[in-house]
């Protein structure tokens, strides 16, 4: 019984982490679909969301702080696209990816200088560090339910948006055939900006909701980005919903490795998954094998 | 004994069958043409012969050795060289360097030899340079040697690509729509050049849309339609083949006097025109 409960504990922890990876992976997919760029600064949006929310929370009630943080970071995402990526359309995709890596470093360092290296966190949304709820036989923090609930809501809302609203369908059109979309009257540059803004905002929301559990610090962006990317390609790049599956899977596998290996090797699991997927099945679980954007021949 | 034997190859993409059981053979010293409407499978066939695609079924033999499914560089080393529909020059290099790349498979020195300047490396480099220059001269573009490849107009890129393919000392040349994008004069020159290449002993298989070019040049023609062979033979025979005519015009013409001049058995304007044999 004890063992089962421990396993469940790990599983839930994996799902919790995994849902954050899922949100980062969705962010990757949104931007990739609309622009073809792998935005390495994705993880920094999560970090910024938490940081900004923590600062705002000193002055306004928590829900307002969170909303504010999401808004600010979404705005940052839009501004980045407008100021930087819109001017760089002639560049090869590889150049752009290298630029986003540089961007991630710059944002990280900026955060260090704005907020210093201390670890911060938002207060628990309900209850405190010690409150716990019984869930399927395991004791978990109510924050976990907040995380799962928020991510589920985000996924649902995104699904509805992409499928049933005009803007969402325009985004999907953009990703599958930009020229045709342009001819149909869709404003491609605005779609790109929207994709950046949306990714940034979603990342910020994830950052806020996970903050009480994993803390927020200036260096958390990079590992999140890589794990989120691993999740995105595990699901299959180009498919935002598959990213959710990818994220959860990465989280669970990571938790499994945590339960077996020393703590320092935590991150290695996600990186190993990344390599494994890239080498063995680069189109991911749900991607189509004939996609020639991955392999040379 | 045929130089190239394509035996019943088939290739599909998803649900679409691009090439459906095509067989052809090319004898040494021949110029063979492959024609057919768009979507007939000509480029897919080419890609299978040159190794860019693997046939689903069927075999390809070259010099009595199977080359099915070999990688493109292996096929190049075996003696088949090709040009592409859109000239694929290395735009960051100049013209001479492009042609020098063609000598790669006939020369040896690799990382160690070149990095450490093994004895003979300088000599090998000189022979590469000279051979490349000679090939450029043979297509009449030696004066362009130092031009950046990206600065050339379309027709000249074509010719440099041809020089590069010739630099590999091929036994057989695959030309993918060499005349497309060229004007009348350039097409005449191209035809002359291909004939001279044949005189050098190199066999040619070419895909072409321009009827005058292909009818005038080829010893033998194969017609593809929807992935199948519908006719094969000498240009004259193929021109008069009713199946070929119907495929290009849509259906048999009925003489009904309603303003139409065409009679059902009048051969198509697929004649040799300016590119016929006598103007060598």
């Amino acid at each position, binding site marked *: 019984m004890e063992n089962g409960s421990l396993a469940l504990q790990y599983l839930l922890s994996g799902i919790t982490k995994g849902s954050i990876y899922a949100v980062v992976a969705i962010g990757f997919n949104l931007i990739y679909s609309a622009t073809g760029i792998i935005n390495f600064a994705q993880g920094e949006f999560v970090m910024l969301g938490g940081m900004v929310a923590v600062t705002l929370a000193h002055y306004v009630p928590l829900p307002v702080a969170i909303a504010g943080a999401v808004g600010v970071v979404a705005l940052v995402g839009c501004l980045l696209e407008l100021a930087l990526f819109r001017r760089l359309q002639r560049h090869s995709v590889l150049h752009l990816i290298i630029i986003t890596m540089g961007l991630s470093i710059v944002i990280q360092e900026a955060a260090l200088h704005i907020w210093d290296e201390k670890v911060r966190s938002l207060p628990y949304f309900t209850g405190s560090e010690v409150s716990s709820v019984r869930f399927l036989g395991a004791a978990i923090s109510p924050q976990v339910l907040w995380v799962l609930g928020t991510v589920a809501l985000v996924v649902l809302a995104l699904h509805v948006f992409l499928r049933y609203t005009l803007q969402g369908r325009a985004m999907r059109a953009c990703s599958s055939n930009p020229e045709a979309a342009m001819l149909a009257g869709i404003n491609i540059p605005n779609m790109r900006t929207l994709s950046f803004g949306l990714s940034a905002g979603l990342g910020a929301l994830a950052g806020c909701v996970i903050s009480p559990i994993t803390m927020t610090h200036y260096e958390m962006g990079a590992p999140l980005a890589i794990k989120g990317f691993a999740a995105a390609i595990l699901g299959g790049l180009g498919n935002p919903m598959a990213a959710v599956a990818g994220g959860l899977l990465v989280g669970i596998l990571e938790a499994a490795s945590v339960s077996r290996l020393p703590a320092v090797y935590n991150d290695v699991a996600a990186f190993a998954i990344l390599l494994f997927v890239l080498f063995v099945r680069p189109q991911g679980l749900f991607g189509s094998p004939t996609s020639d954007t991955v392999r*040379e021949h | 004994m045929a130089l190239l034997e394509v035996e019943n190859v088939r290739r599909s993409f998803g649900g679409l069958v691009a090439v459906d059981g095509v067989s052809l053979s090319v004898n040494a010293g021949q110029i063979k043409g492959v024609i057919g409407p768009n979507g007939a499978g000509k480029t897919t066939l080419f890609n299978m012969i040159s190794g860019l695609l693997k046939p689903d079924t069927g075999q390809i033999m070259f010099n009595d050795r199977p080359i099915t499914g070999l990688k493109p560089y292996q096929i190049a080393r075996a003696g088949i060289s090709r040009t592409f529909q859109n000239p694929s020059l290395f735009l960051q290099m100049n013209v001479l360097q492009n042609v020098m790349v063609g000598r790669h498979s006939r020369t040896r020195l690799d990382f160690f030899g070149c990095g450490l300047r093994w004895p003979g490396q300088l000599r090998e480099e000189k022979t590469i340079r000279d051979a490349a220059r000679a090939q450029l001269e043979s297509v009449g573009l030696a004066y362009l040697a130092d031009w950046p490849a990206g600065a050339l*107009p379309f027709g000249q890129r074509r010719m440099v690509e041809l020089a590069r393919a010739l630099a590999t000392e091929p036994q057989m040349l695959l030309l993918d729509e060499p005349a497309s994008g060229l004007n009348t004069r350039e097409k005449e020159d191209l035809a002359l050049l291909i004939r001279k290449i044949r005189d050098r002993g190199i066999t040619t298989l070419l895909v072409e849309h321009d009827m005058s070019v292909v009818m005038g040049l080829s010893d033998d023609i194969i017609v593809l339609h929807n992935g199948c062979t519908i006719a094969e033979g000498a240009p004259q025979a193929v021109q008069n083949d009713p199946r070929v005519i119907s495929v290009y015009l849509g259906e048999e013409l009925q003489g009904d006097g309603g303003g139409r001049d065409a009679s059902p058995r009048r051969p198509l304007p697929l004649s040799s025109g300016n590119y016929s044999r006598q103007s060598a």
Partner: protein
Amino acid sequence: MNRFRQILPFTLFPVVVVGAQLVMRATETEYCLTQLTMAVYYAIVVMGLCLLMGYAGQVSLGHGAFFAIGGYASAVLTTYDFSRFKGAPWAGWLQKAHLLIARQDLYGNTAMTFSPWAAFLTAMLATFFIALLIGYPALRLRGHYLAMATLGFGLIVSKMLLGSNITGAADGINGVPAWKLLPGLAVTGKSAGRVQNYYIACGLALLVLVLLRNLVHSRVGRALQAIHDRETAANAMGINTAACKLKVFVLSALLAAMAGVFFTHYTGGIAPSEAGALKSVRYVALAAAGGMANLWGVTVMSVALNYLSLRGWFGTYDNAVFGAILILIISLAPEGPLKPLGLWLRRLTGTRPPSPTSHDPNHVSRFTFHASPAAELAPQTDERATGRSPQHGAP
């Protein structure tokens, strides 16, 4: 003219190297040689990356890992006490071959460690196999997938080095002994050997530059550029692109590892941060700053920027500077800032690059083919010749 421009940097190099040292001696700032030496070793990594990224067009965001593998391999082998294996047959055999030696460690105890030369060779072998293992699957990937794969590899190495006790975990390894290259020539951090080690580093850099320059201006260099430019066409011309990419990847990895070994013996230790993503991205930034495919540009930029960084000029903004460099250079001048600088200088001095059309003013656009390829091109007189000139691109 071309030959002169190629040889010129090689003749300037010793002048600059010696000059810098003499200037430092004169201004009594010879302690700066330490950072300069370190910067030169880092530059060797970037040179290899220049070949890989600039010429072959393959991105690697994990070269810090190879530097670290080289450094750690030699560090561990020269500091770990193998005495416990005294009884084993292989230990006896290695001792006889003078690969395993007894030496005094920091505390005066006798320890059995590998000799630095043995450690170096082992490190190179290890790097060779690891680079093959990673390169073979990774190089089949394109563009950003390759970038991510190399990044992932670098991170795994970094985490494993952080996590293992044998590699000293977060503290890294210290007390790495000096390496006697030849009688009288040793790679060591002792201040007495400072000038000598500076010249060792520059000498190594020069050797690497000569090697790479030879490669670039040869059949191999053309093949790499062809692969970068249009891989399909390169393949169709008989170049085994997969093998070529793998070879250049392994070569660049070996260069990085070699730099790592020398660096470790010079500084006497190594830390896990050398394998991290920040370092790897920094190498890429330096390659970009130098002009990706410009060996000399890359060397100059790497040495200069790393030196400034090591001397602390960028303060706490160290990483941010390299990130910013990456963004600015790739967005504004993807071929490196030195190219527009060169063009501007040329415009300033009024010299123009030789125009290709100057070779043939009476050009007739007509293809001619001669039965014997070596025959001279004779102008064709033909009433159809219109003598139209080629359309220029941009001379």
